[in-house]
């Protein structure tokens, strides 16, 4: 493939960022919006072209004709910074199943959000938000960074764009920069992810030092040998280097590789909001809602999943690191689902739901083993990433529509909106059905694959994750009923009735809803697998049906339906059941409602420990001890000067005295010596 189109895919959003950022304030709002949207639309079309070419063209550089294995294709790769002859950061474009998939996901969601924002970022009277152009510039910057991240050819390129993504997310969360809560939320997001990135960076350093390369193709290539797809000779040998090196193959109780992988996973935990580094994501909802849809539901937060998937062959070599991923993911999934049941801010419910769903993907990666259905978990994870991006973006955009109409994030202000906003109602319902895993919506297939993979790994985690899936259905329908049913909406005096939104907002909702309905039929098993080898022989529209493990599927379906029924009973009409439930388990409810006091804990650590016990004492030490020592030295010099100044009094008689005493002493000494 010619590198022209890939270069444009990366360059166009960057150009848009520069144009809108530097010249935006000279443009009209409408022009800026159109420019940004058109730019992103073009990028989307190009990304589709690239992605479809990769999957379906049959080009020998993309698929091995003999083994039907999809290959990693480096479209271009320019040296950017050479640390040593072998450790070189290159900026390039890597096409393989997951990056092609991500190209589609990112550009689709991003385009939807660009389009949607044209309507969202102005109020009912058509007045544009201040900084509208800036908003589009940041969106473009984010899209650029995210695209750069997924097509990275080496781990350091990924880290570069990883940081850029973090920074643009900072800018977008803090978009309403005059609002103190938005400022502190953006700060929190950046610092927490930065802390995680420290682990990522150290992991990269360890890994690259022992393997001598940054390149993904060297680190993770997979090849066929004796009919079995496995980690390639080159990967294995470069990783074996780690063990062959006599210097420190073991570092603080773990092998170097484990440390490297776990630290890299820590970076992923930060971006993907895994416990305990999840605290930034709920706060990040301070940003405009389209931003939440783009960044905090569909793209940036899955970067961690993507990172683990990208290095999956390496993780396969260290069982322990995969176990850690499973445990972290499972705990996070349950935690987030429980918290989501008690939140009253709709965006926060969605945020915790996102955390929970990403944890699903993580667990799925953690349980993936080549022995079981050719690494089904890996495929399921990517599949869920894809479907989740679609329906979660849909849910967020619906939430945005609601907030736009009501002017509040709190569902207590919403109740019973189904008649006022029919389109939003239907699309939101589709989203809920999808996330709950009701056949035939998108979430059903992907979640079912995940549960199947978990089942194949361990029954305990299977039961655990099924329970979480039930909780998911419950809290999503709780939210749905509380917004659209519960009791009739009364229009407060002086306000106009809530109504559906302009077409720029409606269109993305409809498109995404349609995708959520049909995305489950995409034969992902043939497109994205850990070793590039398709799972199915024949592909048709019912492939996914055919591949289902109906045992698992029917159980999960049953769980979901029961959960929905419970939610219906409790929340469809105004009734005292929720209060009763709350009083049944008051402590649990309180802990969930306060998100298990994680924020307070972090507050304590940052303010009391970091600031109070480290920074302040250091500043004190610097001021009084180090600086004090210097000033003390100066003071001592001055004091001595003052003290001996009296000797040089100008009083000649005193001089004679000194002279006399000196002479006498000398004389006495001489006399004594001569005696």
């Amino acid at each position: 493939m010619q590198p022209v189109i890939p270069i444009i895919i990366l360059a166009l959003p960057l150009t848009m960022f520069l144009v809108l950022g530097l010249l935006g304030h000279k443009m009209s709002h409408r022009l800026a919006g159109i420019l940004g949207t058109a730019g992103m639309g073009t990028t989307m079309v190009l990304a589709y072209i690239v992605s479809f070419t990769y999957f379906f063209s049959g080009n020998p550089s993309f698929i091995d004709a003999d083994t039907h294995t999809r290959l990693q294709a480096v479209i271009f790769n320019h040296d950017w910074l050479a640390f040593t002859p072998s450790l070189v950061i290159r900026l390039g474009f890597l096409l393989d199943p997951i990056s092609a998939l991500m190209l589609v996901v990112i550009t689709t969601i991003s385009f939807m959000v660009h389009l949607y924002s044209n309507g969202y970022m102005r109020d009912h009277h058509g007045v544009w938000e201040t900084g509208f152009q800036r908003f589009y510039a940041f969106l473009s910057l984010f899209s650029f960074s995210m695209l750069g991240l997924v097509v990275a050819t080496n781990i350091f390129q990924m880290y570069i764009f990883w940081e850029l993504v973090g920074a643009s997310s900072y800018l977008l969360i803090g978009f309403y920069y005059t609002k103190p809560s938005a400022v502190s939320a953006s700060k929190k997001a950046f610092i927490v992810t930065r802390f995680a990135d420290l682990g990522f960076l150290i992991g990269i350093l360890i890994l690259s030092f022992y393997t001598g390369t940054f390149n993904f193709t060297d680190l993770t290539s997979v090849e066929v040998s004796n009919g079995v797809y496995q980690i390639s000779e080159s990967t294995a040998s470069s990783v074996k280097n780690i063990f062959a090196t006599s210097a420190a193959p073991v570092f603080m109780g773990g092998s170097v590789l484990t440390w490297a992988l776990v630290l890299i996973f820590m970076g992923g935990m930060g971006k993907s909001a895994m416990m305990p580094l999840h605290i930034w994501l709920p706060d990040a909802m301070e940003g405009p809602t389209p931003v939440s849809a783009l960044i905090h539901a569909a793209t940036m937060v899955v970067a961690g999943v993507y990172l683990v998937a990208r290095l999956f062959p390496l993780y396969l070599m260290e069982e322990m690191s995969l176990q850690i991923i499973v445990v972290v993911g499972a705990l996070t999934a349950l935690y987030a689902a429980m918290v989501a049941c008690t939140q009253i801010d709709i965006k926060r419910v969605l945020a915790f739901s996102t955390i929970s769903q990403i944890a699903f993907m993580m667990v799925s990666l953690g349980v993936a083993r080549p022995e079981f259905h050719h690494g089904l978990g890996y495929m399921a994870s990517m599949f869920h990433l894809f479907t989740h991006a679609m329906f979660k973006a849909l849910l967020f955009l619906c939430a945005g529509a609601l907030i736009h109409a009501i002017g509040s994030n709190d569902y207590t202000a919403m109740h019973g909106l189904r008649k006022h906003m029919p389109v939003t109602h239907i699309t939101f319902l589709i989203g809920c059905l999808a996330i709950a895993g009701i056949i035939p919506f998108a979430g059903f297939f992907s979640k079912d694959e995940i549960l199947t993979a978990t089942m194949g790994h361990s029954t305990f985690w299977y039961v655990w994750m099924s329970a979480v899936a039930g909780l998911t259905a419950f809290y999503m329908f709780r939210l749905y009923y509380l917004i659209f049913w519960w009791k009739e909406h009364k229009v407060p005096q002086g306000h106009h009735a809530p109504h559906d939104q302009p077409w720029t907002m409606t269109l993305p909702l409809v498109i995404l809803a349609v995708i959520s309905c049909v995305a489950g039929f995409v034969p992902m098993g043939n497109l994205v697998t850990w070793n590039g080898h398709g799972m199915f022989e024949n592909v048709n529209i019912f492939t996914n049906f055919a591949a289902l493990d109906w045992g698992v599927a029917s159980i999960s379906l049953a769980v979901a339906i029961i959960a929905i029924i419970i939610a219906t009973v409790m929340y469809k009409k105004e009734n005292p059941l929720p209060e009763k439930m709350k009083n049944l388990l008051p402590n649990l409810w309180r802990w969930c409602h306060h998100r298990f006091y994680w924020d307070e804990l972090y507050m304590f650590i940052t303010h009391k420990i970091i600031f109070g016990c480290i920074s302040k004492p250091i500043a004190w030490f610097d001021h009084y001890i180090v600086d004090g020592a210097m000033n003390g030295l100066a003071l001592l010099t001055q004091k001595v000067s003052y003290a001996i100044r009296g000797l040089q009094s100008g009083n000649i008689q005193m001089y004679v005295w000194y002279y006399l005493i000196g002479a006498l002493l000398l004389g006495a000494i001489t006399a004594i010596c001569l005696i």
Partner: protein
Amino acid sequence: MELTMIYYLIPSLIMFCCGVYGFITRRNMIAILISLELMLNAVDINFVVFNRFLFPGEMEGMFFTLFAIGLAAAETALAIAIIINVFRVSNSIDVRDVNKMKH
């Protein structure tokens, strides 16, 4: 009894010590100057005595004394001029009062 050097040096020493005593105890500037003259004179005596007793053929000691007398005259003249000037300014010739240039 032979009048050896020591007989001349001891009075000179006493004279010098008197000068020292005066110099460090008196407060009147003229008195200090007088003590100074005593010390100078004691030194002069020593030069002359050494010349006469140790190097009788030479004249160095004598000439040194000669020049010292000249210098003493010059020095006294200047010192007295300064003292008179100080007196005009501060109406006192007590050394303790002459400290205005110190600060």
